[in-house]
């Protein structure tokens, strides 16, 4: 009887635990999910919102991107590391820069570790196509750090964000961006300028 009871408890724990992990409902990233497209550390999955999504992708999106739109309306790319592969941190400063994508509208938004906007009162959570200034080199730029750089650049505040991630939204992307993003989409770079304690910020 005891053996059966132990078997029952272990099976329920194993089944439940593996499901919440592989569905992305724990802080640990499940293997493979949201990585069917990967371009310079930006990852995406064309099955977001789709009726054809597998149950794991559906569970993942429900936890980390509920009510995301299907790809014909919008596509989403996420990254949580800088160009050197280090996690994005509140106590570091970054420049994000990129080309104008072939889409109707785009934005990049910073989210804290709980997948919500950082609670900092700075009203500086994103950059979007309407506010980006395109430089002579054809690229837009913004500064990501926990204080306003006050240098005229667009500021995305990381104050109170802890370890954060960035979400690139692409609305009504061109057919090329949808079908062959690896060649048709030039994703933004995220360059770390320095971190507190390293002598630069």
């Amino acid at each position, binding site marked *: 009887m005891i*053996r*059966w009871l132990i*078997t*029952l408890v*272990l*099976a*329920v724990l*194993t*089944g*439940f635990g*593996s*499901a*919440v992990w*592989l*569905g992305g*409902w724990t802080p640990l990233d499940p293997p493979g999910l949201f990585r069917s497209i990967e371009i310079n550390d930006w990852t995406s999955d064309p099955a*977001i*919102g*789709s*009726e054809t*999504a597998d*149950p*794991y992708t*559906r*569970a993942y*999106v*429900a*936890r*980390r*991107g*509920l*009510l*995301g*739109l*299907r790809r*014909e*309306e919008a596509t989403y790319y996420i990254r949580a590391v800088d160009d050197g592969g280090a996690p994005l941190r509140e106590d570091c400063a970054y420049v994000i820069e990129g080309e104008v994508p072939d889409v*109707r*509208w785009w*934005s990049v*938004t910073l*989210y804290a570790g709980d*997948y*919500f*906007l*950082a*609670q*900092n*009162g700075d*009203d500086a*959570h*994103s950059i*979007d196509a*309407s*506010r980006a200034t395109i430089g002579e080199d054809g690229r837009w730029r913004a500064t990501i750090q926990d204080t306003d750089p006050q240098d005229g650049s667009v500021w995305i505040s990381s104050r109170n964000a802890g370890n954060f991630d960035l*979400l690139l*939204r692409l*609305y*009504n992307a061109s057919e090329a961006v949808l079908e062959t993003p690896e060649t048709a989409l030039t994703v933004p770079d995220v360059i770390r300028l320095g971190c507190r304690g390293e002598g630069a910020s």
Partner: protein
Amino acid sequence: MIRHILAFILLAAGVHAATIWYLPRLAMNTAMSRLEAQGAGLNTFIHVPPTDETSRRVVRPSPDLLYSVCLLDLSEGPVQIHVAGWGDYVSLSLFAGNTDNVFAVNESSGEGDIAVSVTNGDGADVDLGSERGIAIVRRLAPDAGRIAAADAARRSGDLCEPE
């Protein structure tokens, strides 16, 4: 011993499959409950205030979009939705109870306004595939001027009601 191992595998697999199936529905029910707790009624639009750091009902809200939400209950029949065009991006998206985005359209595909009827089954423009779900209207409003214009448009022209 063999019987215990077989029972473990079968039970663990069953619990795993049931949990994976249920998690999206849990997320959807939780989101709908939060919206209802905030005063959202069924089959009527709630015009969500401009997104900021206090927007914590649904993960990853965009601060550059103005949202309106209608909690759909199709148990009594179809619901009709009308979304007013306002000269810039506006979309209507419909989400089933399992989180699938079963329908999405924006103003560029028509005359500016969007009008659809939704039901659970055949007989309307869109089959939601479930009795309950969520309709979301997104308007591009990245600054105060656009927010004011989008808010005026939605309050004067958006409609979600039983047929």
